[in-house]
């Protein structure tokens, strides 16, 4: 049987066996939680508490006025010890709230479920989702309430639930779908309600038969939800690739899926929305896979936001061998952190620990004109041309003639390059340089 998919892309080695069948374990709440005030794309949060305050579990500790932002809540109950810059996944340090755990897990009194959500209007529900601090948990961390409020001139006719989990090693979405398929389906129904009872399509890669069976069972017989098996190919979980595979619609260059009437959400995000609506609990914990050859006992954890990587790794039996890299997220799009003092944020779905013998140290050689990067690119770019323009500082040409900004930074080109050229990195660099330049011109 041929599964649905998108053109081009690559096949990875997956490495999911280590954690795929393992049940999710709830990690210990941290003794000290360090909660960074930047956990989403958009405006950083402003602290809503003072040093010395007592905070409840689920109490809002950071928020901002701006449109594109998401509030941040305390993952534990306890005392605010400090408000200071601490190491962060994306930057060297970010203003963080340091909370000492009192071990009580006292729930914030204002937290309450919304059992009659079907009677609430979309704006109220969007506001509940905003106040619950829900962001895209697949990695991008874009505030979900913005995604669920498409511009009025775009009519949405489908909501896609992304259960592809196409990255190596990661299995937390798989575990979620196997263990709590009703959360995923329930959350999908809530989103569909907000967008005007549109059809729901769940896409899951064919290498997760358990998840497919569980979600199909939870979806029931009705024709409002279809569950579709997708080819196991990277980057199947990319938003635009998902739309192409499931609905055969092409998101235009520079556009969002809403331009073709679609909203895409990750399974972890929709499950969190379900949890928020049915229990009132904001986003203070998430599933995270700890895997890779450098971890003694790889596993899937449910951990509180603000738990340090050191704690998570010791939860999984500590390190094994000589450690070279600790990668936040999957190995394709994740970032290798400089210290394990960084703490879990809303968008980290996995921690992959690599030993020295597992990583490639080869220096870049030269382009041999094999065009493997061109064949692999899921958005039909020519990574090698972009690389040359980026290295020769000719960024404008890369934008105008070679579609620089269509790059989704999936890393396929760098993965397949036999010359080990830093293709994706140079493209990312060119994008950042262009954005810098535009900002400067804008500033003037």
């Amino acid at each position, binding site marked *: 049987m041929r599964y649905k998919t998108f053109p081009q892309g690559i096949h990875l080695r997956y490495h999911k066996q280590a954690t795929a069948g393992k049940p999710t374990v709830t990690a210990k709440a941290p003794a000290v939680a360090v909660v960074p005030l930047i956990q989403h794309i958009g405006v950083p949060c402003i602290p809503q508490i003072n040093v010395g305050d007592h905070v409840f579990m689920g109490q809002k500790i950071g928020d901002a006025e701006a449109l594109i932002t998401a509030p941040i809540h305390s993952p534990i109950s306890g005392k605010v010890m400090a408000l200071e810059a601490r190491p962060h996944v994306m*930057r*060297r340090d970010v203003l963080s709230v340091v909370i000492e755990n009192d071990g009580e897990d006292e729930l914030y009194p204002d937290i309450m479920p919304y059992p009659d959500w079907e009677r609430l209007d979309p704006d109220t529900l969007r506001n509940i989702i905003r106040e619950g601090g829900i962001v895209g948990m697949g990695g991008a961390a874009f505030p979900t309430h913005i995604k669920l409020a498409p511009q009025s001139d775009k009519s949405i006719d489908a909501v896609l639930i992304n259960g592809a989990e196409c990255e190596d090693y990661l299995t937390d979405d798989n575990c979620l779908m196997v263990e709590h398929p009703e959360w995923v389906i329930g959350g999908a129904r809530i989103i569909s309600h907000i967008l005007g009872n549109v059809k729901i399509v769940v896409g899951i890669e064919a290498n997760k038969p358990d998840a497919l069976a569980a979600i199909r069972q939870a979806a029931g017989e009705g024709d409002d939800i279809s569950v579709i098996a997708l080819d196991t190919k990277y980057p199947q979980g990319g938003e635009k690739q998902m739309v192409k595979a499931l609905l055969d619609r092409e998101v235009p260059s520079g556009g969002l899926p809403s331009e073709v009437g679609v909203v895409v959400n990750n399974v972890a995000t929709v499950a969190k929305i379900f949890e928020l609506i049915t229990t009132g609990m904001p986003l203070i914990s998430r599933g995270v896979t700890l895997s890779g050859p450098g971890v003694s006992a790889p596993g899937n954890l449910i951990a509180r936001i603000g738990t340090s990587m050191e704690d998570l790794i010791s939860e999984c039996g500590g390190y094994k061998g000589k450690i070279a890299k600790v990668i936040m997220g999957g190995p394709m799009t994740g970032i290798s952190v*400089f*210290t394990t003092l960084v703490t879990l944020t809303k968008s980290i779905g996995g921690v992959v620990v690599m030993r020295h013998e597992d990583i490639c*140290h080869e220096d870049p050689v030269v382009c041999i004109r094999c065009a493997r990067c061109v064949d692999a690119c899921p958005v039909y770019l020519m990574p090698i041309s972009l690389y040359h323009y980026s290295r020769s*500082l000719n960024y404008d040409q890369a934008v105008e003639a070679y579609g620089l900004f269509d790059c989704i930074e999936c890393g396929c080109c760098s993965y397949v390059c036999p010359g080990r050229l*830093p293709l994706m*990195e*140079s493209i*990312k*660099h060119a994008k*950042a*340089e262009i954005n810098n330049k535009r900002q400067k011109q804008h500033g003037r």
Partner: protein
Amino acid sequence: MSSNIILSVAVLAALGFILGAGLAYAARAFAITRDPRIDAVLAELPGANCGACGYPGCSGYAEALVIGSALITGCPVSRKEASERIADIIGQEERMNINSDKLISVVKCCGNNNTSARIFNYSGLEDCRAATRFYDGPKKCRHGCLGMGTCISVCPFNAITMSPLKLPVIDRDRCAGCGLCVDACPRQVMVMMPERSGIQVLCNSGEAAKAARQVCSKSCIKCHKCANICPAEAIFFDNGPAKINFDLCTNCGLCVQECPVKCIYETNRG
């Protein structure tokens, strides 16, 4: 046989004459008059085509000067005398602003691979700007030079080389003072200084002494010893490392001896 040859020569000669006459007419009738001042200005410009003025090379800048859409001060490479001659040619009354000093770029960091601590091993793109985006670069000091040579790649005069300990070295004779490296440097470590300035404080860190010492043994600790010993009172502090007023500095070199961390250098003596 010979008549054939004569005929063809005659036809070609007639054809050449007619077409030549046509071209001669066209050259007069459709001639584009080029302002002679453009060539005169171009002759005075440095001719390096570095692009620091923002125009595509010296000829583009010369045209813009003559049209009046650019200022004489736009070329940072030109010397005072040349700028004044250009002002004479185009009649721009901008002489007040013509900078009399030749400027050269200075790397305000002396924390090399041996003295400046690192926070992680960086194995990505060899470009300071890319490295800065990755946790602010591998150096513990957030103000120091990253030593990956982005300044070298943008220098049109080949005036910068990398020392074995990964600090850029400026060739003062080759540096034309275009300032492209200053724009390219993500750490603001490169600054333009007057060429006559000999003594330089080669530290960019405004951190307090303890924090600065923890990341680099060559960091300015703001001890004020240099300011106290300076006979010309040319050294001052304002929320950062020591600064030198080059109008007062006599290049005596006492501060170089006095500095406990040795971050003051006589840059004009290599």
